[in-house]
């Protein structure tokens, strides 16, 4: 439910715009001030920046063999034509005289075509708007290799899954059906952020080959069934099949086969990202939860609450909202619901989300407070209230401190009543320690470390590594990282990777262990504990190598720094050369680091020679990996997305 939490902070668009403003030197904005004390949003800003840098770090494709021959032949023909007196090869390539950018504005016939096209598009848009609330077939119908019946399985009923094997799956007698099941007792939490164990599925059943070559399994669903995500794994666990990059999703119904509100929401929780990706590959499975909820449960605010979160993927929501006005809908729902007694937690929570969606933080606080008051045990209560208060902070109203202080008992109540691990703990902890008195700060400071903490290894590692000094929150994170680093990458009984091979899962798991060890070593070095820093850096190197990293540079740099402190200058120099293998030969980042760290003991010639040897070894390692990957691509046709 991460996307819900963002709503109480500056919107994604505002953060994205801030990244651009920041790049262009605009500082001191309101968002900038917010980022100064909000780890979550600054983390998101880093993620946004990371998208660009990750893209720039990737290699471009190389021209295929034989292309020059085509160009040569074509250039020959073009030269012949150009030489003919009645024909001219138009110069379509030379850029405009302006230096800044290209200009491709349409003109002439092309412009007329675009006008006609625009008219058709407008007509189509109007038609789509008219048809919008009546879109048919909202549940997944299973048009892929995996089909299931009934289309809307009921709790306690039976579900038959039929799988037509992909070419790359081993033609064995049986395959494993792996799944993540959401039930009323176990609605799956989001599995974002590299918690590879939380992302595992259960071995649900063995798929047995039928006479027609398809594989079939029938499973009995629990009485509390809501939704299910499934993939197929072969017995050796070295091939899998899935709905592209996501599990196939099966959304349950009520006992009387009617659409189930809880099932739609649970399906969204199984894999929220699925709805974005699936819409590209599998139109018939691209269930839009917001759309479905609006259709089947028009008087419930949930559809409206989620619609704003999914508008980026639907594109049409803004126009829809223009005609139907979310604000007016909110007002009518408010009229109907606010005076009602015994409102369930779902309605209160979704009204808070709806209020946020239409940018009414005061209203969001109103519904969140009521949720805490009437359903403090709801796991969303703390997050909703803390988020709403955080939004209030952003508005900087008069007497902010007193106002927020008056809400701290409610936060405490929500924390005590909620089951672990509840969401919103970090926000609540920050609010309590910022605005509370000494006893409140002490109370929250002692709260269990793993209660609601962010389990995202990547974010935790990054925060611990970059923290200028150790704080109470860092201690909590380090404890979590230590536990994660100590956990071996072995599958728990009955659990299997989803949409992933066993080797792929193990490599990913080791990578996160390596990140955890790396962050711990950074923290130890920062705290002056060179021995611990060395041990953790050593473990990071080992884990990253098991993860398939050919040049784990950061781990080597940490180990070099630790060795230097421990007096092992030669070892440090070697580690610096190994670290350089991860960077292009022209980059001076590592040599500069080594020069500063080693001082007069830095031998440039020796460093360059050592780095070259290490780089060659890393290159050979990368080439070998690519050969293996290519072999797999050839085997599967590179086509795991159908």
């Amino acid at each position, binding site marked *: 439910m991460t996307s819900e939490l963002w709503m109480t902070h500056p919107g*994604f668009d505002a953060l994205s715009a801030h990244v651009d403003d920041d790049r262009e030197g605009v500082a001191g904005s309101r968002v900038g001030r917010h980022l100064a004390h909000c780890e979550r949003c600054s983390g998101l800003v880093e993620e946004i920046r990371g998208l*660009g840098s990750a*893209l720039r770090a990737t290699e471009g494709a190389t021209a295929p063999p034989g292309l020059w021959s085509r160009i040569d032949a074509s250039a020959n023909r073009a030269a012949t034509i150009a030489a003919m007196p009645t024909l001219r090869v138009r*110069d379509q390539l030379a850029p405009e005289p302006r230096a800044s950018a290209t200009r491709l504005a349409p003109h002439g016939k092309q412009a007329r075509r675009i006008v006609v096209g625009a008219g058709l598009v407008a007509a189509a848009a109007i038609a789509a708007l008219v048809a919008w609330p009546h879109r048919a077939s909202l549940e997944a119908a299973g048009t892929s290799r995996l089909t299931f019946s009934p289309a809307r399985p009921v709790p306690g009923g039976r579900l038959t899954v039929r799988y037509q094997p992909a070419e790359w799956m081993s033609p064995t007698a049986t395959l494993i059906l792996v799944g993540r099941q959401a039930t009323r007792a176990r609605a799956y939490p989001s599995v974002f952020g590299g918690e590879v164990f939380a992302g595992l599925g259960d071995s649900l059943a063995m798929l047995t080959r039928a006479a027609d070559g398809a594989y079939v399994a029938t499973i009995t669903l629990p009485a509390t069934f809501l939704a299910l995500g499934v993939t197929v794994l072969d017995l050796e666990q070295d091939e899998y099949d899935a709905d592209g990059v996501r599990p196939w999703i099966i959304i349950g119904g009520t006992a009387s086969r009617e659409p189930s509100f809880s099932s739609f929401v649970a399906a969204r929780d199984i894999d929220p990202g699925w709805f974005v990706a699936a819409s590209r590959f599998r139109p018939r499975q691209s269930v839009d939860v917001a759309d479905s909820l609006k259709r089947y449960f028009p008087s419930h605010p949930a559809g409206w609450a989620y619609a704003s979160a999914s508008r980026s993927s639907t594109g049409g929501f803004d126009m829809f909202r223009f005609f139907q006005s979310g604000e007016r809908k909110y007002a009518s729902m408010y009229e109907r619901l606010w005076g009602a007694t015994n409102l369930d937690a779902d309605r209160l929570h979704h009204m808070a989300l709806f209020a946020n969606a239409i940018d009414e933080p005061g209203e969001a606080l109103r519904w969140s407070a009521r949720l805490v008051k009437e359903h403090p045990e709801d796991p969303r209560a703390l997050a909703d209230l803390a988020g709403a208060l955080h939004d209030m902070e952003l508005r900087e109203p008069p007497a902010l401190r007193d106002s927020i202080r008056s809400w701290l008992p409610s936060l405490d109540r929500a924390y005590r009543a909620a089951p672990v691990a509840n969401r919103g703990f970090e926000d609540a902890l920050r609010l309590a320690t910022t605005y509370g008195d000494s006893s409140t700060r002490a109370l929250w400071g002692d709260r269990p470390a793993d209660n609601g903490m962010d389990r995202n290894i990547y974010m935790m590692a990054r925060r611990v590594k970059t923290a200028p000094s150790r704080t109470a929150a860092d201690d909590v994170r380090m404890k979590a990282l230590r536990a994660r680093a100590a956990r071996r990458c072995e599958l728990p009984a009955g659990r299997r990777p989803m949409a992933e091979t066993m080797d792929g899962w193990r490599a990913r798991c080791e990578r996160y262990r390596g*990140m955890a060890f790396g962050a711990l070593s950074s923290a130890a070095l920062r705290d002056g504990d060179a021995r611990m820093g060395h041990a953790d850096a050593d473990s990071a190197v080992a884990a990253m190598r098991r993860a398939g990293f050919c040049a784990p540079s950061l781990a080597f740099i940490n180990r070099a720094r630790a060795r230097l402190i421990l007096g092992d200058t030669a070892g440090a120099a070697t580690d610096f050369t190994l670290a350089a293998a991860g960077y292009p030969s022209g980059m001076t980042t590592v040599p500069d680091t080594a020069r500063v760290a080693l001082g007069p003991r830095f031998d440039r010639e020796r460093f360059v020679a050592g780095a070259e040897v290490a780089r060659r070894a890393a290159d050979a390692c990368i080439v070998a990996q690519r050969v293996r990957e290519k072999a797999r691509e050839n085997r599967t046709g590179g086509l795991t997305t159908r």
Partner: protein
Amino acid sequence: MARPRNGTAAAVTLTADLVVSLRDRLDLTIAGDRDSLGGLFVLYGDMVFGVARRYTTCSADAEDVTQDLFVRLPMALRGFTGATAAFPAWLRRVAVRQALVLLRSGRRRREVSIDGVASLVARADHALDRLTIQQALTLLSEEHRTVFLLRELEGFDHREIAEALGISVANSEVRLHRARRQLRDLLRGST
């Protein structure tokens, strides 16, 4: 440095590559010297193809763009009046422009490009990319992807993007935010 590869440069005479300066090579290309054009392909073919591949997400389209560009390069070079050192950047912009022209022309190849889409085992040395950024990009709509690439890869500001695509500055901003949001969702959802 010229880097002959099997197949691609088979017809290119590279003997003089090491001694011919880039300025000379450009002049010879304008004059119709095919070997010099081949030398430019060896030097910059990968770059042009890589740029085109990113924008079109389809190898066949990228080949078309690369071919069109190099076939017309002798003529187009007459419009290049900058310093020799600026040639790679100029060529890159031309490649971007040519890719955008193809995207807008509607004459794209029909085949669906699947390479790079979802090889889930493809791994890269970055924490976020089990679904790599390149794979995630292919999942975006063309209009979102193009704006993201122009911004993040070419460093265009929104005014330049708007000009290049014939859209408003506000539209460019919205497309960029949406592209980033979708990429974030995709990459988060994949870890």
